[in-house]
């Protein structure tokens, strides 16, 4: 079968085999163009409210924003704690057996020793949570890793969309005044899914 002379644009092959190859080439070019023109996007679901689990969403979201990507974090369940005005997050040693226990100060050799404390001790000893939190804060400070508050401010500054789960507020009897005013919007699962549908990267943390 041949394409008739009348409806043929210049440069387009007329026999089917070459037309097929031509279309493949053209499609690749078009797709590459579209990919280059598209702003990449990152959508994170943050569900944990402890300090160790607060780092990944804020680090990834702020870095994505620095790369010029569209970046958003949906805070739900305990993740909502990370959006409180009065940020009181802690490291929980309970049920966290892989957490290294190392001194953030003292001689170099001591800082490398992992003090294995059995989980039933760390999880039950009064004040251990505060101790572990203080150690973690000290460690991040000496290593030049920003605090959660600092990272959250950077996220706000750099235009990361911080969206909060409406249902969680009702579920845990929070008041909206407890949260930072920079929250972009309060939404539910449906709205979030609709916006995350086209994200290039979607992470559940």
């Amino acid at each position, binding site marked *: 079968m041949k394409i008739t002379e009348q409806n043929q644009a210049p440069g387009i092959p007329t026999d089917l085999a070459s037309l097929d190859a031509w279309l493949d080439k053209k499609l690749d070019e078009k797709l590459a163009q579209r990919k280059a023109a598209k702003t990449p996007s990152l959508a994170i679901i943050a569900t944990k409210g402890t300090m160790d689990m607060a780092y990944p969403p804020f680090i990834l979201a702020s870095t994505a924003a620095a790369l*010029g990507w569209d970046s958003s974090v949906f805070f739900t369940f305990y993740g909502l704690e990370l959006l409180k005005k009065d940020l009181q997050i802690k490291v929980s040693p309970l049920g966290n057996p892989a957490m290294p226990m190392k001194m953030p100060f003292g001689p170099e050799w001591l800082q490398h020793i992992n003090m294995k404390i059995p989980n039933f001790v760390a999880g039950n000893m009064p004040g251990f949570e505060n101790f572990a939190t203080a150690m973690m804060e000290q460690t991040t400070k000496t290593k*030049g*890793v920003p605090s959660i508050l600092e990272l959250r401010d950077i996220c706000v500054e750099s235009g990361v969309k911080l969206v909060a789960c409406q249902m969680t507020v009702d579920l845990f009897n929070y008041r909206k005044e407890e949260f930072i005013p920079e929250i972009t919007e309060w939404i539910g699962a449906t709205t979030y899914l609709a916006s995350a549908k086209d994200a290039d990267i979607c992470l559940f943390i």
Partner: protein
Amino acid sequence: MEAKQTLDARGLNCPLPILRTKKSLIGLQSGEILKVISTDPGSLKDISSFCSQTGNELLSSQQQGKDYEFVIRKA
């Protein structure tokens, strides 16, 4: 080539060197040069990846003792 601005990111760890680099670049005009000094070994790969993602040109990246020095031309 004269650097318009120098960013001292020494002592900072991931992701701060990148976030500060981005912030410093905002203040520059297209074509102007930013010099970044860091101590985070991760920044060696991260700065290069940041530049290729954002279209800014990494003119040089080298190690000077414990410091890493990057020269970036803003796109």
